[in-house]
């Protein structure tokens, strides 16, 4: 049963092939069995899951089922879940039971979905390897000596290992697309403002966006139908109709123009990696798409821009973690200053502290113009590159990450080397565009991802393009050894 996709489970439940309780029980047992070796979950909510499954079966019997009623899934531990531990991968929130549900969680609850628990992640979503989690690293199901990518490494590994057919995730600089690529699954980051950020613990508010981790593009469209909604509780959420993302999946892509940015096919990306992506492009040409070389000339400035904007916003957002109202508090503080400094010093890990400090420095008196304002100006240049490019092309394609999954410890001593892991994904967040990664090949038995970047609110088109690719190829069906 664990090889079923969301679409298949939805159809099977509707046809009465099995009940939600049966598949939920089956997957919970699988989590217990396999996750000891992967560490993809921080919290498994067995009792709640079985209660949700029972309620879903009753709802179906009463004739009120939605396509999601009774379908099992999981949430990244960055989404607040009422009465359930919500740690954000940090010691700081290791005792935090959220007092309310995030809008994304509420949307899935209302649709009748069954959550099996909360997935592991880099601490406060800061990392590209899942090695910064207070709860230990997640292992890549394709090779347990390697990282699953990050920050949504738990969601990616759980989906790749067939523990759940889909999971929520978030992406601030590549945190959905890069782990999706490294774990051989499909990951979509929607347009900034498409999905509510309410109840999603903030890292960099102008970049954070919730999205989907699934094995197929069809399942991603099904998740988007639930996740995308206008929410007046999130002032940056955009009031705009939500299409049925599944209805255009099979549209013809004949005549679609694909832009290939020269800056994303660099000499330091291995020939094998590039070949996998070129093969995918050739597949699109067979389906009648046209290919055009384009230039995004400010690409080289995207990582430096990100490492001003994201730390600056994180230093402000994480100031609420002070040991007073919730979360970790140090033992025996001698005064209020000691309470703040030790609670934060002991509660946050090194990467989080580094980023808070970079942000505090960039925002401090005398440096604001040179760092934050300058970065915001370059951010507009980066956006303008995309606006210009989308005058001539429908979709932009590139590798998702510069390398396949790397080994544990390989980049932990050098933060800058880790930051360059997101070199192809960061610009999309800075511009606020939707981006997706789909599996498109393998190098040394490790998955490689193809990134599809769409124009603003053009999720339906990249889902359409991704689905057509998955109809023509079988990379998304490949499973890690021992997982089948």
């Amino acid at each position: 049963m664990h090889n079923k996709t969301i679409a298949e489970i939805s159809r099977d439940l509707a046809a009465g092939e099995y009940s939600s309780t049966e598949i939920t029980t089956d997957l919970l047992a699988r989590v217990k069995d396999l996750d000891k070796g992967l560490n993809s979950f921080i919290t498994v909510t067995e009792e709640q899951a079985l209660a949700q499954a029972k309620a879903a079966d009753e709802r179906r019997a009463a004739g009120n089922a939605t396509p999601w009623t009774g379908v099992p899934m999981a949430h990244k531990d960055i989404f607040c879940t009422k009465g359930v531990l919500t740690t954000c991968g940090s010691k700081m929130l290791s005792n935090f039971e959220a007092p309310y549900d995030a809008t994304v969680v509420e949307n899935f609850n209302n649709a009748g979905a069954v959550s099996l628990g909360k997935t592991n992640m880099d601490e406060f979503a800061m990392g590209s390897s899942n090695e910064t989690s207070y709860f230990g690293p997640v292992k890549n199901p394709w090779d347990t000596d390697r990282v699953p990518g990050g920050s949504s490494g738990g969601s990616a590994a759980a989906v790749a290992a067939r523990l759940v057919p889909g999971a929520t995730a978030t992406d601030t600089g590549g945190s959905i697309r890069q782990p999706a690529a490294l774990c051989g699954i499909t990951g979509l980051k929607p347009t900034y403002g498409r999905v509510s950020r309410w109840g999603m613990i903030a890292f960099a508010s102008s970049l954070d966006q919730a999205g989907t981790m699934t094995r197929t593009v069809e399942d991603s469209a099904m998740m988007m139908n639930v996740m995308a909604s206008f929410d007046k509780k999130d002032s940056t959420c955009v009031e705009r109709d939500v299409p049925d993302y599944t209805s255009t999946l099979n549209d013809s892509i004949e005549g679609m123009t694909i832009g290939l940015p020269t800056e994303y096919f660099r000499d330091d990306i291995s020939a094998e990696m590039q070949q996998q992506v070129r093969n995918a492009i050739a597949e699109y040409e067979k389906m009648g798409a046209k290919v055009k070389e384009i230039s995004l000339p400010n690409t080289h400035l995207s990582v430096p821009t990100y490492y001003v904007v994201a730390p600056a916003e994180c230093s402000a957002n994480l100031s609420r973690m002070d040991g007073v109202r919730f979360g970790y508090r140090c033992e025996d503080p001698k005064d209020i200053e000691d309470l703040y400094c030790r609670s934060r010093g002991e509660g946050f890990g090194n990467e989080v502290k580094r980023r808070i400090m970079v942000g505090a420095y960039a925002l401090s008196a005398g440096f604001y113009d040179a760092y934050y304002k300058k970065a915001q100006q370059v951010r507009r240049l980066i956006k303008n590159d995309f606006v210009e490019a989308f005058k001539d092309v429908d979709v932009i394609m590139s590798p998702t990450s510069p390398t396949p999954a790397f080994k544990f410890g390989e980049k932990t001593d050098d933060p800058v080397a880790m930051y360059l892991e997101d070199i192809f994904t960061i610009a999309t967040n800075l511009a606020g565009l939707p981006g997706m990664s789909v599996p498109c090949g393998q190098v040394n038995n490790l998955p490689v991802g193809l990134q599809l970047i769409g124009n603003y609110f053009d999720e339906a088109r990249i889902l359409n393009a991704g689905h057509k690719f998955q109809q023509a190829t079988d990379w998304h069906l490949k499973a890690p050894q021992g997982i089948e």
Partner: protein
Amino acid sequence: MALDQDQVRKIASLARLQIDDGQIAEYQTNLTNILDLVDQLSAADTDGIDPMAHPLDAVQRLRADVVTEENQRENFQKIAPATEQGHYLVPRVVE
């Protein structure tokens, strides 16, 4: 842009983060490397470019000035490290 150890201590104190003395050198190296990466921005020509704060250049939505939240003090204070009679407890601030 190389930071010295006193600058690292000052930034940590501004951010209310206790950093152990034994770790200051490591932070110094890492923060300096990050700032070197960021310094590539100074070469970009941004004359006349408006700073971009929001990807869609959206403006703040307004709403009617009415009460929308219910009081949930007990609910929120249940998860606090220390409270008394509806207040959050911290070490004495005023002697």
